[in-house]
């Protein structure tokens, strides 16, 4: 405690140098936190998934559909307590850049399997009555300024033509991790038109969603479902919802890996910035350390001063970095809202960012500290003369 004053004064001795070092650290910690948050955003879908849900898709690829007729067979498998289905719609709202996920879902069963989507009862009632009704997430509604009752036209890309809808409900998420940027339309509205225009595409769904009573039986049930359609024209692949979400992450595996490498490089940059400052500082003060040793200060005291200063600078830089992360996160999150519905700085990221700064503070001081304590007093004093 007695030496804190000396550490504090030494830190501000070269104000501009210290300020620039702290600024560099803060920007690096902010970059680290934003990159980590981006990585987390890739995994947000998997984190929000329920262990009680399985997803059945075509074994060849998600692009291929499955016959709706599979529903009855799947529902009979022991351990399944609920079943629904969904079809990717892929419509364009005004412009292709206005991307958002759209699913045609079974009005009777879908939302029962997703209790995390909170829909006002009256709005759900209207959705059940009107074929062209849609329910959208709060964030999606806010993004385009939609309200209940607004007519919306989409241009189909997967299912060609102009499609007219009316917004009849706006859902919110029960949890922070719940996606609030999705569009749900009725499957029967899509299927009826397919029957008229392209009958070969009618009665096809992209995926079945199963609710199971016991998550520990997921592997067993998945195997049984898939065995039902073995050697058929459309074999199935059943997996947990988490595994299904992670399969999307693995598609962008190289990007995620690249981001992870960059986040480590950023820590390396922090280390270099601070190590450079501490090396300059210790070199300039070799004579002062020699004087202090002459007065009776021991190596432990000199180490305390150098490590204390380095850790102090690193801590201030780390805290400033975390503080500026929040406004930057809002900017980046808004810009990437089409791709990442949830862009939230996790507490683990904050802890990692601060720990990394403190670790860097420690590492950056090692060589300057060793040099300071290893320099003989007489050599240190000679620098003055």
């Amino acid at each position, binding site marked *: 405690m007695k*030496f804190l*004053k000396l550490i504090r004064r030494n830190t501000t001795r070269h104000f501009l140098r210290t300020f620039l070092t702290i600024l560099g650290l803060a920007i690096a910690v902010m970059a680290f936190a934003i990159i980590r948050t981006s990585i987390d955003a890739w995994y947000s879908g998997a984190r929000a998934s329920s262990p009680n849900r399985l997803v059945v898709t075509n074994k060849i690829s998600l692009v291929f559909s499955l016959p709706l007729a599979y529903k009855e067979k799947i529902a009979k498998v022991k351990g399944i307590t609920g079943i629904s289905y969904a079809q990717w719609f892929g419509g364009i709202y005004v412009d292709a850049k206005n991307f958002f996920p759209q699913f045609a879902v079974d009005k009777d069963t879908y939302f029962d399997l997703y209790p995390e989507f909170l829909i006002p009862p009256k709005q759900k009632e209207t959705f059940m009555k009107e074929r062209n009704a849609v329910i959208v997430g709060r964030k999606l509604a806010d993004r385009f300024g939609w309200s209940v009752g607004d007519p919306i036209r989409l241009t189909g890309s997967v299912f060609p033509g102009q499609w007219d809808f009316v917004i009849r409900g706006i859902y919110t998420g029960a949890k922070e991790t719940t996606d609030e940027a999705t569009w749900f339309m009725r499957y029967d509205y899509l299927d009826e038109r397919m029957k008229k225009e392209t009958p070969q595409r009618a009665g096809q769904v992209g995926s079945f969603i199963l609710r199971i009573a016991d998550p520990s039986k997921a592997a067993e049930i998945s195997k049984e479902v898939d065995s039902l359609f073995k050697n058929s024209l459309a074999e199935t692949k059943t997996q947990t919802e988490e595994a299904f979400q992670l399969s999307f992450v693995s598609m962008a595996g190289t990007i995620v890996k690249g981001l992870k490498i960059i986040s480590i490089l950023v820590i390396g940059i922090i280390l270099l910035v601070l190590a450079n400052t501490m090396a300059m500082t210790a070199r300039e003060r070799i004579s002062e350390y020699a*004087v202090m040793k*002459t*007065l*009776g200060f*021991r190596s432990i005291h000199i180490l305390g001063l150098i490590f204390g200063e380095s850790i102090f600078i690193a801590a201030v830089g780390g805290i400033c970095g975390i503080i500026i992360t929040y406004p930057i996160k809002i900017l980046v999150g808004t810009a990437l809202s089409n791709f990442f519905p949830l862009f939230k700085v996790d507490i683990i990221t904050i802890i990692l960012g601060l720990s990394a700064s403190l670790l860097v503070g420690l590492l950056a001081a090692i060589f300057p500290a060793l040099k300071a304590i290893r320099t003989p007093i007489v050599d240190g004093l000679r620098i*003055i003369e």
Partner: protein
Amino acid sequence: MSEVFVQLQSIYKSYWRDSLEIPVLYNINLNIAESEFLALMGPSGSGKTTLLNLIAGIDRPSQGEVIVKGQHINGLSENALARWRSQNIGFIFQFYNLMPVLNAFENVELPLLLTRMNKKERRQHVETALSIVGLSDRMKHYPNQLSGGQEQRVAIARAIVTDPNLILADEPTGDLDKQSEEEILNLLSRLNSEFNKTIIMVTHDPRAAEKAHLIRHLDKGELYD
């Protein structure tokens, strides 16, 4: 007759530059009594500062023994030596060597941070030391706000604040004007006469050496009367 306070026995000191041995001191034998004021004189490169550093325990002899107040200091570890210096030695440098980020009070307080004294006790000691050197009114001044003479007086206050028995001064007036030089020498004389401090002062200035009771000369590493 006062007791022998500092004993140098058969001191030999050399430095190595690559593979070349450079001898600095040869067979130095010297006894310094308690409360003595000794001036070590000699030309540049004669080994005065090296001898002072050996007595201060900030350098070690290649051969021989340095005994201060009965303590063989050569055998002490670095940490023990540092602790010993903090309790027994007050060192005054030619260029003052004050910490630029600390004011006069804080500079003088620095050696006391190594003691168990509380804040109040430290304050009392610092104020006493600064009053002895006549700088009670400059406590809050930083080194760059003081003259050379004042800086050296702060350095002397720092050297005496722990009340050491032995004060070592390496060219304490070498960087000062005549008036400041006189003030510093009078101060050292006072520390010797009033406070019974044993003082060893390195100087090449005969006028400074006149203040000492005893003058020894070093030339090419050898000690002469």
